[in-house]
């Protein structure tokens, strides 16, 4: 029990929890916007990989860090456009298409990375984002290192939560997006194009996912590794359900996940008798448990995964 308090009372634990949550916040919000408009984006795992690779590669080739993030967002948005063209415009199966998009983006990212960075001993590094120093707050004892020494991208993630919540609940555009996800016929009857709304939502959401991926290579680490996303995209899809498609709860879910992940990482060396793989399994099993927990009262957008084809029943 003392170990528990030792871990939880350390400032580094709280810093790590928010750092681990950051890519998930971006990814979950990105998936959430798309699903609110009626489109499940299983391309997320691949889009995060593409964001991680393009963001890193741009900086590696000499771009400033923020330009790298912009490149990642554009790359993600472009892949999102492909997903939207196939699932929204043509109405193809969102499951299979999303998976195809993931396989395509992961393999294309690996291919391009290998093209520009030939195999060598250890992958090259860039100078990643440094923590933002806030006057007074960052220097507070314990609180400073625990909560106020994050990179700009983490602050951007928190800001994005507010922005997405505001967009969805306080603007006409948000209302239209939600309507496209609940009742596309009603949306069309109002003279609002379901195709445009869904395409826009998927593209914007994919850009967010890609920024989440880029956070890993330009802030959390300083290199790109193959398969570095490690299922984070799938976890985001689970978190959207856990959050009942609400941005605030999505933030909560991502933070809980980050705390749990930070906790198991710190617990590992303290219990040497237990194989480390059991600890690494925990986050995945926890995500499944979270899905089961909310399954009974999940309020799914009514038209989620239903293609809209005008004039057809």
């Amino acid at each position, binding site marked *: 029990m003392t170990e528990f308090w030792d871990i939880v009372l350390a400032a580094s634990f709280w810093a790590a929890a928010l750092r681990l949550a950051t890519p998930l916040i971006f990814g979950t919000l990105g998936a959430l916007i798309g699903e609110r408009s009626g489109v499940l984006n299983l391309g997320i795992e691949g889009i995060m990989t593409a964001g991680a690779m393009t963001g890193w590669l741009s900086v590696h080739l000499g771009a400033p860090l923020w330009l790298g993030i912009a490149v990642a967002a554009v790359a993600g948005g472009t892949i999102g456009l492909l997903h939207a063209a196939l699932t929204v415009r043509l109405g193809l199966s969102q499951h299979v298409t999303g998976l195809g998009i993931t*396989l395509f983006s992961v393999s294309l990212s690996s291919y391009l990375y290998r093209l520009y960075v030939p195999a060598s001993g250890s992958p090259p590094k860039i100078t990643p984002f440094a923590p933002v120093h806030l006057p007074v707050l960052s220097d507070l004892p314990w609180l400073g290192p625990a909560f106020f020494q994050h990179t700009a991208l983490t602050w951007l993630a928190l800001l994005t939560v507010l922005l997405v919540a505001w967009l969805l609940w306080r603007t006409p555009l948000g209302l239209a997006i939600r309507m496209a996800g609940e009742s596309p016929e009603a949306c069309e009857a109002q003279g609002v194009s379901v195709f445009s709304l869904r395409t826009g939502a998927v593209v914007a959401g994919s850009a967010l996912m890609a920024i989440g991926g880029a956070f890993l290579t330009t802030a959390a680490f300083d290199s790109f590794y193959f398969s570095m996303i490690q299922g984070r995209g799938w976890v985001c899809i689970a978190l959207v359900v856990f959050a009942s498609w609400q941005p605030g709860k999505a933030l909560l879910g991502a933070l809980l996940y980050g705390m749990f992940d930070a906790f198991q990482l710190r617990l590992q060396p303290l219990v040497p008798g237990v194989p480390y*793989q059991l600890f690494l399994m925990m986050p995945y099993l926890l995500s499944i448990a979270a899905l089961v927990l909310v399954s009974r009262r999940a309020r799914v957008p009514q038209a989620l995964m239903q293609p809209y084809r005008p004039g*057809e029943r």
Partner: protein
Amino acid sequence: MRLERRERTPPLLLVAAPMAAIVTALVLCSLLIGLAGAPVLAAYATLFQEALGSRLGITETLTRATPLILTGLGAAVAFRARFWNIGLEGQFYLGAIAVAALGSADWGLPPALLVPLLLLAGALAGALFLLGPALLKLRLGVDEVVTTLLLNFVAILLVSLLIEGPMKDPLAFGWPQSVPVTEAGLLPQLLARTRLHLGFALALLAALAIAFLNARTVFGLSARAVGLGTPAARHAGIPVGRVLLLTAMLSGALAGLAGAVEVTGLKGYVTTDLSPGFGTAGVIVAMLASLNPLGVVPAAIFVAAVFVGADAMARAHGVPSFIADVIVATALLTMLVALFLTEYRVRR
């Protein structure tokens, strides 16, 4: 642009669709090969020459296609009933590790008895690993896509735990790999001086069996009805839950069998890189075959050929071998569009 559903699909179109999809994918990927500064036609020639141009190449391709046929069937069976089993990779590893666990012991059984028992155990392990997601879907409505995807990571970690712990081979110079399966538990070779094993014949038999099951049995037709629409199937008196559960178990068993066959036929032991993505490639194979079990065989051979040939292309022309993954993933996307065009017509 307007899309219009076809009254009926010309049979020629159904055959032409996968061909057109593959050609389009190869043309699109030639841009990437060009980006690498390699001569496109020569590079493709090297790829297919390596994979299909010699006795060794062909047998290597068929060996590689063996697990792909089985995971492809696993995906095809499930997707046909609209059960989205994306956990084939995990079920593959469960099948493999179950066979390694049982097969490394000396049971004193003749091969003719031991091998079928091991394969059965592998299939059972794969099916059981899918039981959880299937029941969660049927009982609580938990989306099976996310649960099966997440369980893939759990499966790999479980295998890693076992081969670094209780199942570790002490003679492997510290490498994490399982104790090998005994001689009596291995599948015989099909052709001398090649790696092609009996598993390939088994995979072909499995394709025939699934084709029969789909077309000629009540279960196969019920699964199709469930895939076309759950409410309609329910009205027709089909026990939807039971059909979906059985379909899921069959799908998991096929993926588990793929793992079992890969261990008993080719590797003899399990490592965490036993599968270079056989599970995910199974989904591609199933879609390229338009979920037709007999189409799975040529689709798997195509995907296997790309992977076998890509290494030679990488050596000869300096194209990163990831091109193989790009080609098959692109083929999946172009195939989805091609399948769409068999059902719809584009009008101005």
